[in-house]
């Protein structure tokens, strides 16, 4: 099992660091899955993390100038590591101005992802900063938990409004309630609703547009008909808080009263986030 990668381009380094920071805002621990072409950050829905799951996919070629890996075996050419994205994010943030950053899998007192950065220097002596992020290697027999979640058979798919606007609204609603209802239809309308003993608040977004693949699998669905999911407002807030860069596309799919599936697409990265609906 071997992995080493090198980032020279500062823009790539910043971008990678931003992605990891976004992940860190969403979850305390996750799995980093490495394949010859891609890196994945995976969180599988367990009760302990409120049933949310996450799937973030990066194409290695867009980030790394050098990338070598050798999986557990030639037929299972993958590596799965459990780590704290916060640790990795902190390591990357401190080396933002590095000339180059190497990321590799090492065996120290425990398995680690070692981030070593060559920092700019005025003298001829080079300065290298090394961060060891402890990881846990996930054995082959547990990999089945880390497969890409199948896109659920959603009732409605809709583009999200500007995430900043949505974040402002969700932040205020969080002060008022613990749960929030997201509802949307195939007519480009989405509502965020809360209701408590003191107050009911509904924010109406319209003309958002629906992605071409539509939704409403049972054809001829009423375009005005709302699909809704009642979710833990903190999960949605976490997701919105983590989005640091305006994505190319952001959308959400709703399986009526079951799942809120959020998808954020960047040029070279994609993030899916699943929030289970509560009764």
């Amino acid at each position, binding site marked *: 099992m071997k992995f080493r990668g090198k980032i020279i381009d500062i823009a790539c380094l910043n971008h990678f660091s931003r992605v990891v920071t976004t992940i860190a805002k969403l979850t305390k621990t996750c799995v980093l899955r490495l394949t010859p072409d891609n890196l994945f950050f995976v969180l599988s829905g367990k009760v302990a993390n409120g049933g949310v799951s996450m799937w973030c996919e990066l194409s290695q070629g867009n980030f790394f100038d050098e990338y070598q890996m050798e999986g557990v075996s030639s037929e299972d050419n993958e590596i799965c590591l459990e780590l704290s994205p916060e640790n990795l994010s902190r390591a990357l943030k401190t080396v933002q101005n590095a000339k180059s950053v190497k990321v590799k899998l090492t065996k120290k007192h425990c398995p680690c992802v070692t981030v070593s950065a060559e920092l700019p220097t005025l003298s001829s002596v080079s300065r290298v900063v090394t961060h060891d992020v402890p990881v846990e290697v996930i054995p082959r027999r547990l990999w089945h938990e880390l497969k890409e979640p199948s896109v659920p058979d959603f009732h409605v798919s809709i583009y999200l409004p500007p995430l900043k606007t949505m974040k*402002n609204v969700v*932040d205020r609603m969080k002060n*008022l309630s613990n749960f929030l209802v997201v509802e949307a239809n195939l007519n480009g309308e989405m509502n965020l609703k809360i209701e408590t003993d*003191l*107050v009911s*608040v509904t924010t109406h977004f319209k003309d958002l547009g629906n992605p071409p693949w539509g939704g409403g699998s049972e054809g001829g669905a009423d375009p005005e008909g709302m699909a809704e999911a009642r979710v833990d407002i903190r999960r949605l807030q976490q997701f919105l808080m983590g989005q640091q860069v305006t994505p190319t596309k952001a959308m959400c799919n709703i399986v009526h009263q079951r799942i809120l599936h959020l998808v954020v697409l960047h040029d070279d990265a994609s993030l899916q986030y699943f929030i289970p609906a509560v009764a």
Partner: protein
Amino acid sequence: MPLSTQSQDDNDEQYILVASLDNARNLSNILKAIAFKDHAIFTATPNGLKVTVEDSKCLQANAFIQVEIFQEFTIKEDLVGFQVNLTVLLDCLNIFGGSTAPGLSTALRMCYRGYGYPLTLFLEEGGVVTVCKINTQEPEEPIDFDFCSSNVINKVILQSESLKEAFSELDMTSEVLQITMSPSQPYFRLSTFGNSGNAHYDYSKDSDMMELFKCTTTQTNRYKMLLLKPTTKALALSCKVSVRTDSRGFLSLQYMVRNDDGQICFVEYYCCPDEEVEEE
């Protein structure tokens, strides 16, 4: 007016109070100045809106938003009163983040149908509409502090700037703030008695910061620091403050607050004295 597209407008008839603002911050900012307790008593008259918040029957804050501030203000009765949770109202008013960026403001339309109905807010920013229904409660009778200008003994008007400075330096370990107002030395003095000793903050009556000085009798009164603390919210927003005491030692603080559009509103605090101080 983007909000007029709301279908609810067809039923404007049913409301006994409708008030609109192009910029919701003109209301939310002034309400922040009195937001130290959850319960706020709203009293609307044809002159405008008065919002009252009280604490421990010893402190009362009133914010006045006169009718001119609103773009529309329709009231069908002489007096409309209700009580709502102020924290909830402020969260609703700032639902879009309360952005201060120029050219981006939240439009507000506030409607009330009458006793037993919620206070309904329609807020709009950038084409997004939020509807809030805040449940109302039976309005409590605000305490009458019976503070008459004819009983006022001492009065000063200060630039808020100077009082802000004093308040930021006050020794908060002191249980009380003692205010001395006098036609002779020390004129206007703020004193604290804290863990690290006593401190006095004096203003000369000829100071540039002193706009008006009208003290007839030497008077020293103490006020609970805990009660005065919320007044700093109003102080922070204001440009001028009038400090008055009456013959019973009651304190009135009136703050002049200028909003985003340069209009003037007033926030007023009344506070009971903590104890009588023997005059020597």
